[in-house]
Structures are given as structure tokens and as C-alpha cells.
């Protein structure tokens, strides 16, 4: 307890670095797994990004292969597809971020209002499950739900006298399918984060509001939601770094090689896959990954800067 209290003391320290290290050793120790994880899986491999600038060969390895400058980036920019790909990728991610967060928040608040603890736990677990279902299975499930030949929903609609739209042939409506599948997969996971944040809201505020005569809706409107603001902003900042990265597994398994849908479902990852599956060029694949990371990094920096200007409390750093 003592150690943790010290950790939240943000006043400029009168003591040296080592002293503070010693003061916070328990907290630091708890961070070690995360630090190691990022060290080994993110920072150590980072020099490997150099492969994007080489004509990779197996004997030379990453640093022994001939340097070719920006040649590996060329194909993406000369494809004439980049604008559409960026548009699709960013719009999907925005839809996932915005709709996802709203839905997660909404469900977290609902769960918070439910009194029966058992019900809450069971619901949370059930909602969490889709997160663990692989994209391959999601693709199959969706196909068997909506395919125009014998899909479950198709038959259901038919038997009720309606007509099911041919979703796999219609690029205009298929994005809805993707968004629904994604939300189905990720909502349970995200809800946990918001639920934890709600649980962290000072109970005395709620009690005070109750005493003052605020009803359930008013408490949500004036206490819960404002308290979640910080959470929303931070999750948004995290998410925005990946806004030009798509969920290849989900998209590839839902759309596959159905090129009718590409105009609205092709994201950077699936396009690159289609380019590379016949040539298997690591360097070019890495070049695209690097491009996405740099783009994402720039976005996070800008977004964080803006947030800091508006309200320094909510910025990441």
C-alpha cells in the first residue's frame, strides 16, 4: 500500500533516480512482464524492418542482402489502388472504433445496472467467447448464414415469403456484414475494459446523486458517462495508431477471393496478399508493414498533440 501511494505522487521529486526506483520497486516489478514482452517482440525485431529496403535473399539474411532503397515501396504507390485501399481501411477502422466503443460502453453500462451478479458474470463470459473464435470459423459461419443458395438466414427469409438480398454479390451491402461480424467478435472484449472503468467510479458520487434525487438515467447521463470520457479518449488514441492496419484474418475469411466485393472490402492487407501470393516477396510485404506503422505512428503523435492542447489530463504523454 505504501509503495503504491508513492507511485501516484507526481510532485517533482527531491530525490535521485535510484531512490525513486527503489521506492517504486514493487510497481516496477509488476511491469516487468509487459516491459519484457515489448522489448523482445517489438523493440528487438525493429532493426529487422531494414528488410524492407533490401532485395532479400536467404543466404545473405536481412543485413547481408543487397540494399535497394525504396524500390520495394514502389508497387503500392504505382498500383493506382492506394487511395481506395486507404479509404476502405480507414473507414472500416473508424466504423469499428466508433460503433465498437459505443456498443461496448452501452453494454457495460447495462451490465452495471444489473443487480444480479451471477447474471452479469455469465453474460460477460458468453459475450467474451466470440473473441476466441478464429476468423476461419467466423468466415464459415457467415457463409452458412447468408449464402444465396442455402444459407440459414436466406432460407428463413424465404420461408417467411421475403427475399434475401444476394449479399455476396453486392459490394454495397457487404460492408455491413463485415462490421457486424467484427462487432460480434470484439464487443465482449471491449466491454470488460469499460466495465472495469465503471466499477472504478467513486461510489460516493453515485450515492450523493441518489440522495439528491437523480434517477437512473440521470446518474448515467451526469456521472457515469462523464467519468468514462478519459477511458474513451485513451482507447481512441490507442486505436488510431492502427487505423491503417486492417484485420486480415477477418477480411480474408469473409471475402476470400470474391473479387465482386473488392471495391468496398479490399483493405491494404488483402491487396498486398493478392499481390504477393504469386511472387512471395518478403521485402515488399515488409515495406507495406513499415509504411503502415510509420503512418500510424504519425497519426498517434498528431492525435495526442491535439488532445494535449485541448485537455492535457487526457493525453497519453
Amino acid at each position, binding site marked *: 500500500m505504501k509503495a503504491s501511494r508513492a507511485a*501516484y505522487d507526481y510532485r517533482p521529486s527531491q530525490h535521485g533516480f535510484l531512490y525513486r526506483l527503489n521506492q517504486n520497486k514493487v510497481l516496477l516489478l509488476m511491469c516487468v512482464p*509487459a516491459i519484457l*514482452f*515489448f522489448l523482445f*517482440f*517489438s523493440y528487438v*525485431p525493429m532493426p*529487422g*524492418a531494414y*528488410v524492407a529496403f533490401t532485395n532479400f*535473399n*536467404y*543466404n*545473405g*539474411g*536481412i*543485413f*547481408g542482402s543487397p540494399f535497394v532503397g525504396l524500390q520495394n515501396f514502389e*508497387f503500392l504507390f*504505382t*498500383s*493506382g*489502388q492506394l487511395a481506395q485501399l486507404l479509404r476502405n481501411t480507414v473507414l472500416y477502422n473508424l466504423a469499428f472504433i466508433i460503433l465498437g466503443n459505443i456498443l461496448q460502453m452501452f453494454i457495460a453500462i447495462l451490465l452495471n445496472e444489473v443487480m444480479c451478479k451471477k447474471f452479469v458474470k455469465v453474460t460477460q463470459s458468453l459475450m467474451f467467447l466470440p473473441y476466441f473464435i478464429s476468423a476461419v470459423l467466423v468466415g*464459415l459461419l457467415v*457463409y452458412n448464414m447468408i*449464402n*444465396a*443458395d442455402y444459407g440459414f438466414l436466406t432460407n428463413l427469409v424465404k420461408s417467411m415469403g421475403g427475399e434475401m438480398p*444476394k449479399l*455476396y*454479390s453486392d459490394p454495397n451491402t457487404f460492408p455491413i456484414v463485415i462490421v457486424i461480424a467484427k462487432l460480434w467478435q470484439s464487443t465482449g472484449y471491449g466491454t470488460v*475494459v469499460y466495465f*472495469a*472503468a465503471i466499477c*472504478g467510479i467513486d461510489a460516493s458520487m453515485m450515492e450523493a446523486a441518489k440522495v439528491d434525487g437523480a434517477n437512473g438515467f440521470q446518474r448515467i447521463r451526469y456521472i457515469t458517462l462523464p467519468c468514462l470520457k*478519459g*477511458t474513451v479518449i*485513451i*482507447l481512441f488514441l*490507442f486505436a488510431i495508431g492502427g487505423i491503417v*492496419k486492417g484485420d486480415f484474418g477477418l477480411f480474408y475469411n469473409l*471475402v*476470400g*477471393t*470474391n*473479387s*465482386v466485393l473488392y471495391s468496398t472490402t479490399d483493405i491494404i492487407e488483402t*491487396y498486398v496478399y*493478392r*499481390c*504477393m*501470393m*504469386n*511472387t*512471395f*516477396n*518478403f521485402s515488399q510485404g*515488409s515495406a507495406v*508493414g513499415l509504411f503502415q506503422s510509420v503512418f500510424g505512428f504519425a497519426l498517434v503523435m498528431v492525435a495526442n498533440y491535439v488532445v494535449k492542447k485541448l485537455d492535457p*489530463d487526457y493525453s497519453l504523454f
Partner: protein
Amino acid sequence: MKKKILALLLAGLMAFSAAACGGDTTSSTGGSGDTASTADGGDGAGDAGDAGDAGNAAIDTSEHVVVNYLTLGDIPTNQTDAAVVELNKMLTEKVNAEIAIRWIEWTDWATQYNLAMASQSGDLDLIVTATDWLDAWPNAQKGAFLPLTEEMLQTYAPKTWEQVDALGHWEDCKLDDTIYFIPEDTYTQWINHGVMYREDWATEAGLADGVHSFEDLAVYFQWVKDNQPDCVPWDVAGSVTSGEAGFSGGWWSSYTDDINIDGFGINIFRAESADDLTTISRYLLEGDEFVNFAKTMKEWSDAGYWREDVMNYKGDTREEFYSGLSGIDQHHTETYYTTVAPEMQKRTGVDVGFFFFGEETDNLVRTVTTHGAMAIGAQSQNPERALMIYDLMRFDQEVYDIMNYGFSDNFTVDENNILTWADDYDSATEGVTFNFWAGRNDEMQHKNSTFAWEPYEALVEVYDQVAIEYPFGKFIPDKTQMPWLENLSAVANTYMPQIAFGKTDDPEALVAEFRQALKDAGYEEAIAEAERQLAEIYG
């Protein structure tokens, strides 16, 4: 507030870490000196050293080694494991070595194979490869294979050296005058694709002679549609690879004299004809044949010859064909007479015919000598022993039989070399699967009595009259000079499935769009470069 943000940061980190997994996972494959492959077996090491045949008496095989053999295929559930044990006894006795098999399964095989090539650490010795369907040349160029010197081959695989040399086929395996793999050049096989159809149904459909053209096929499909309510005329999983989809490649062969050139990774480069090897066909860019293809496929799609959602369907067409749920299956001659026809003939009154692509125009090319080939891993710890084992695989009847036919008590071979299985033999449980496609040898083959030899021999009679040798055996495209290939791959893989499965309201407009997209992606430039490279060799 700060406290909560900190707590959230932690939660966020945890969530973020999941996302981080998708990041860069490339790692250096530089010589790690891994010695995992030299596990010591011990048994019989003492006396086996001199047990080899006279040819390699001078070779030191005193150390028992494990040779890793990489092939493609699903991990077998039959008697293969037991056969490996048996085979290893033989190999230990003959060359004091054993093999361990590593499988690249059919799920995502193209990617997994190349990944295995890229991430070698001395863990691969014998590698099944091919210049047409596996990326032998790109992998050789990138350094995945050990260069094989004539001396090595003569010393460790003398019989193989001699056989291939006598036919002059080492030339087909050279990159910059260096041999990179051993061709499977003395095994007769026809891997030309075509359509397997039910002859009994074709007869009922009024095609007494069977299906021999795309026009016939349309008649057959319509009959299936009208008369077999549970059967989809072609219940195909319409995924796409190498820029080909549906009948796009077959139609191209059947309506032109163009010959496909392997090695570009994407099949949109064909030569004008066997007489003109340095001109690339403009079939995709100009002319009516391709437009007709698009129109016909649109008609076929509207007629319901395949599923509405064919491009997302992932069923197993062959199993469906066996059960009468698909009207045809599409694959090559080998599959036809060794697998599908024998399986279908078990059903009374059912016979299977084969319509080969190019039949209408006599456009047929023999199998390239490197359709199967064996390479040695670049970082192999035991290339010598690997070559010795290969020589046995190709020339030692005992080794050959167990790899290709299984345990000897399951079959008998008569004086006419006809192999007959024991009465209670069940290939599903008692068979063996080595998927040894890199050194089969006609001299060693037995004539498997279960295969459909009669229709096969009739087909080969036709083939022999029209087929030409694959003319581009010595051509290895220099893809580094063709920066357009990636985008062309994307264009072909985008438009070809839509055209080949008729998923458009206006096929002509779609073809026009495809042609423009090809040009925008640099198809003209790519053709010019390919022609320049061809002219260097064949000009």
C-alpha cells in the same frame, strides 16, 4: 483521474500486446550452425559403415545421421509411420542414415512452402520442389538450395547422375551454369488439366462419344441441371490462384495455340505458338476468344452451372463428384486414371471420361522434366548422405517399393510387372503416403492393377499424336526486371474470377475494364520485357 488513466494504460497495454503479435516476425536465417539434424542414432553404426554397395565403399558413413525430407501433403493417417520405421531400417543398413519427414499440408501450402524455404536452419536436407507448381527457380535464386556440383552428384548419387546425364536433362536444372536440383525426368506422367465427367450421364445427355469440347460440356451441364436435381453441374470452390480461375486456363488452351510459360508466378504469359517462342500472346488484351469466354461463362453462371456464391464456397468438389453431387471434377490426367476413375468404377454403371483442355485445337504440352524435382537444403548438414538416400529412393527396388507401394505383404507383382493388391487390402488404412514426387522412375514402377489403364492408354494414344515437348525448359524469368508483376497479380486475381464465374451484368464491359486495368498495371511493358528475355535464349 491520473490513477484511472494509469490503470487503463495497463489494461490497454494488455490489449495492445495482442495486436502487437501481428507485427514483424521476420528473423535472420543466417548460418546458425544448427546441429539438430545430426542426432545420433547409434544402432548399428559400427558395422553399417562398410555395408554400402561397392559404389560408395570409399565414402565414410560411420556416423549415423538423420536426413530431413520435406514434401507436400496432409499428414497421413495410414501405415506411413510404420513404413518409415521399416524404410529407416533399410536406409540404416545401406547408408547408415534415416529420414524424418516434414509435411507441408495442403492448407495454404504455397505460402507455407516458401516460408519453410526462407526459414531454414539446417533442418531441411531433401526438399521436394518443382519449377512449374512450386517456386523452384525463385527459391534457387534466393539461395534456398545447395548448389550441386557434378563431383558431388557423381560421388554420392552415381546412378542418378548417369541416368539424368544420358538424357541431357541436367541442363534443365541449371541456374547460371550451376545445378540446383535433380529432375524427376524418367517418370512418365501427364499433368495436363481437363474435366472428369460421368460417361453414363453424357450418354444420356446425347453425347454418345463423350465430352470433347466446351460445347459438349455445355450440353452435359444442361442435362445435369435438368435431370439431376441434387447435383450442381460443377460444384466448385471458386477460389483463385496464379491469376487463373474456373475454366480460364482451359479455355485459353482450347481456343488458341498459345503455350503457357512457367515461372512468372502468375499465368498470364503464354507464347504465341510452338513455332514462335519469342512472341507473347495478346489473348488477354485483344481479340474475341477471351470475350467469348466471358460471355459463355456469364451464360453458364445464369444457367446455374455453379453456385450463386461460388467464389465464397469452400466444398470438396471431388468428394461431391464421388457422391453424385457435382457433375464434374477438374484436375489432371494423372488424377483421372489413378484416383478418380478407379474410385468411380467401384460404383456400378458409372464410368468416368476425361475431356482435356486443348483437345479442340490439339494444343497439348508434355510435362516439364522438372514438374517434380529434389533439391538439397542450402544449410543441410548432411548433403552427402541426403544424395546417397536419394539415389536409393530412385534406384533401389526395395526402398522404392516401400515408399511408393507400401509393405510388400500387401501386394504381389507378377512377371508382367502387374501389381495386384491382397484381397483384404484397404488403401485407406493400410496404404502408405510418402508423396515422393521427386524421383519416381519408370524402370522401378509397377503397373498398379487398380488404375484405370484402359481409358488412360486410349488417352495417351491421342496425346502422343499431338503433344509437344515443353519448349521453355531453359527459360528462367528474371523477375527482378519486371516490377509490374505484383500489381498484375492483383489485377488478374481481381478480374479473372468475376469473368470466369460470370459474376457481372455485362461481360463485354468487364473484359474491357480488365484489359484497361492490365495495361494500367504495366502488362504491355511486362510483355515487352518477357519477350526480350525470351529472345536472349530462343531468338
